């Protein structure tokens, strides 16, 4: 085994993870090669040196911060608006249903005819309302409270003006 070949197995040999065949090969090489023996020795020392680095303890609030972030809602991705939302889906379905219902409603000309009929009914009795005799004899009007007596200097006119009653 050459120095280049042993290099890849040297770490596994030193940390005792090499299999028995690999161990035997490395041991044979180390017995014959002073440079690799020195290197192996220094690797062991190096690992001791690396152990000198102190372990850092997380800050006191670390666990609390993790729990807080876990409990928080996940942030939205940039494409969140492409994902169907229940509220959007419901709104769209409602709008669609409303459109279908509106489309099935009777056409507007029928509404126009109905309006003309109503107008005719409203004005067909107009002549009666303008007839003074009919109005003075109308029983329901006699039950209305009488107007207060007129002042002397104002022109008296006991009979109400047709306009006052007609209101048209």
């Amino acid at each position, binding site marked *: 085994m050459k120095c280049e070949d042993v*290099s*890849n*197995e*040297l*770490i*596994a040999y*030193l*940390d*005792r*993870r090499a299999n028995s065949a690999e161990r035997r090969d490395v041991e044979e090489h180390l017995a014959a090669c002073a440079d690799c023996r020195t*290197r192996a*020795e*220094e*690797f*062991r*020392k*190096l*690992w*001791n*040196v*690396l152990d*000198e*680095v*102190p*372990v*850092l*303890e*997380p*800050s006191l609030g*670390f*666990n609390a*911060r*993790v*729990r807080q*972030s*876990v409990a928080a809602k*996940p942030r939205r991705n940039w494409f969140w608006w492409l994902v169907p939302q229940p509220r959007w889906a419901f709104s769209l379905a409602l709008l669609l249903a409303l459109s279908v219902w509106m489309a099935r409603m009777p056409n507007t000309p029928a509404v126009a005819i109905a309006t003309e009929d109503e107008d005719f009914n409203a004005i067909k009795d107009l002549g009666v309302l303008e007839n003074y005799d009919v109005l003075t004899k109308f029983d329901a009007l006699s039950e209305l409270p009488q107007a207060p007596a007129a002042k002397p200097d104002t022109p008296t006119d006991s009979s109400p003006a047709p306009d006052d009653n007609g209101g048209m």
Partner: protein
Amino acid sequence: MIRSDVQLMLDVKEGHDASFDLLLQRYRTPLVNFLYRMVRDVATAEDLAQEVFLRVYRARRQYSPTAKFTTWLFRIATNLALNSVRDNRHRKMEISIDAPADEDQAPMELPTREMRIDEHMAERDRAGFIRRAVASLPEKQRVAVLLHKYEEMDYVEIARVLDCSESALKSLLFRAYETLRVELAPLVSQSATPRVGEGRPS
């Protein structure tokens, strides 16, 4: 009886948040230390560790125990750490490009969060010297050393985290330790010769 990581993670998947707390307690220190050795800033390391736990929790429903829990955990941590290191390097480059070219001016202070006074003091001592040497390794070598030396992960696991073959990992580790042997030669030469069985990572 101590429940394994996989059992705890399966509990979390079933909705037992108490098991998540146990995993948090078990891995908070190794994770923060691993990330600190990667990014060399305590606050950033804690932020990243928090993000690792958050990602683990959010992925709980998709969890299936195909690999060791630690492989998954440190793979997430490695990706986040490498991204953070690259972002930080990029930010520093932008600052140095934008800095005035006047050589008489004092060097520009980087916007830091990066180093606290106590960290500065630590840098001056022996541990700081060692940390700097580890931090100066190329990214993959650094991850390999940290997982091998400090997390005591086996080769299969580390190879999975780094997405490389086992033989490539052995080569990576050899080169990393060889660099550190040279960089830390003053400390290595002072160090006593370990007895048989000492000075091994695990």
